[in-house]
Structures are given as C-alpha cells and as structure tokens.
C-alpha cells in the first residue's frame, strides 16, 4: 500500500504488520463469530436471555471496531483501537466477575462469561496483547521484531 502524505515526517502508523497480523486475525475471528452469534440470538431467541444477548451484541460491536481499526492503521485508528480494547478488557473483567457472582442473571452464555472460558480465555488474553501492541513505539512496531523495553 502506498504511503500517505506523511505529516511532519511521520510515516502512517501501520498496525497490521508483524505480530499485528496475528492479532488482527484473532480479532477478525472474534468479530465474525460474535457478530453472527449476536445476530442469530437477538433475532430468534431474544426473550430467553435478553441481558446476555445484548451484552453479546455489544461485545460484537467492540470486536468489529477493533478489527477495522487494526486493518486500516493510522494514528486515529490506533487511538480508536486503544479505546475499544480498553473497553473490551473492562467488559470481559466486569462481565466475567458478574457471571461468577450472579449466574442467575445469565440463563445463557455470553462471549465474556466466566472471563471467556468457553473460548480458551482468549477474550481476556487478547486485549492485554492488543494493548501491549498498540502502546509500543511506532519504530518498534515497524521493525516487527520484539525489542527490549
């Protein structure tokens, strides 16, 4: 892809190179999975567990935003992704705790139930990796090799 007009000598922030490609793929999987699941549940069985399904839909929206931001790149997208991934981390911790404390509120599972146990705990691991990736300096990200802090 052609470099855009670099503002003040800064290259466009690329977020999908190196380890970012793996992170993008994982978010893509969750975006597709959570979205189709939410669409299905909201359209066919909303009454069974409205809270769980609305939270699933919220999670789906967050995953889609992160995936698009990572794929597009650029400083604005990086900031948007940082906000969304922070929301994701807060969400999975809050809902994970909520489902532990009050399982009766959740007749059906959400992606974030029990800290994402049904999904190999990836819902709680992924945002931590994502935050690490987005907070690295642009030069480190572009070289795409792990470097000492």
């Amino acid at each position, binding site marked *: 892809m052609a470099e855009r007009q670099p503002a003040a000598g800064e290259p466009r922030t690329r977020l*999908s*190179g190196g*380890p970012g*490609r*793996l992170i993008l*793929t994982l978010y893509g999987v969750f975006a*597709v999975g959570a979205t189709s699941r939410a669409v299905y549940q909201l359209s066919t069985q909303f009454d069974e567990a409205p809270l769980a399904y609305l939270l699933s839909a919220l999670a789906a929206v967050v995953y889609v935003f992160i995936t698009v931001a990572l794929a597009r790149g650029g400083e604005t997208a990086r900031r948007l992704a940082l906000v969304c991934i922070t929301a994701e981390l807060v969400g999975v911790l809050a809902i994970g705790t909520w489902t532990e404390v009050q399982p009766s509120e959740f007749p059906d599972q959400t992606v974030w139930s029990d800290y994402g146990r049904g999904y190999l705990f990836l819902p709680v691991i992924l945002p931590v990796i994502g935050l690490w990736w987005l907070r690295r300096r642009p030069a480190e990200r572009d070289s795409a090799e792990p470097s000492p802090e």
Partner: protein
Amino acid sequence: MFTPLTIAVALAALALAAWCGYAAVKDEPTKDWHFGGMAVVTVLALAQVVVGLVRLGGGEDPDEGTAVFVAYLLAAGFAVPAVGVLSLSERSRWGSATVAVGGFVLAVLQVRLYDIWVGTGG
C-alpha cells in the same frame, strides 16, 4: 453430515496448524509447500460445504437449526483461504502463525459442525 469427512477436515486442519506453527517457531514465512497444504485443506473443507448443502437439500434437518449450520459451514469453507491471503502479504513468521491460527479455528469449527448436526444432547 458425513462424519468421516468431518474428521478428515479436522485432522488435516490440525496438521496444517502444526506445520505452520512449526514454521513460525523456526522464524520462517509460509512457503509454496505450505500453500499446497492450505489448498488440500481448503478442497476438503469445500467438499464438506457441498456435502452439507446437498444433505440439507435432501430434506435433512440439523439439530440446532439450518441457519446456524449453514453459517458454520460457510465459515469453515472460508477460514483457510482467508488466512492464506493474510499470510501472502505478511512474509514473516507472523504470517505462518496466522495460518496456524486459521487451521486451529477450522478444527474447532468441525467439532461445532458435528454438534450442530447431531445435537449435543443437552
């Protein structure tokens, strides 16, 4: 569903995941042989899409519903081609790791497809 094919797709997908995971550990990008492997797995997955649609067309009903089944079936068909494209433009170990993830996801999708077809029994 045709269970032997489901098992074959799952095992082939896991083998692909292990192979590309090994390449990632060795710090190598995906090579021609890996793409050959992806092609084989994709052909198997597409054969399964055809078998699944034919059996649906024959009037059979998946336990958890047709819509869910078709969604998983299509996802299984697209999984490996999608990561193949992603690894084409990422010529590093991370491209290989991406294909490994795709293979693993496809194997999980096979388990889910089986459950959706026969039902989990509770």
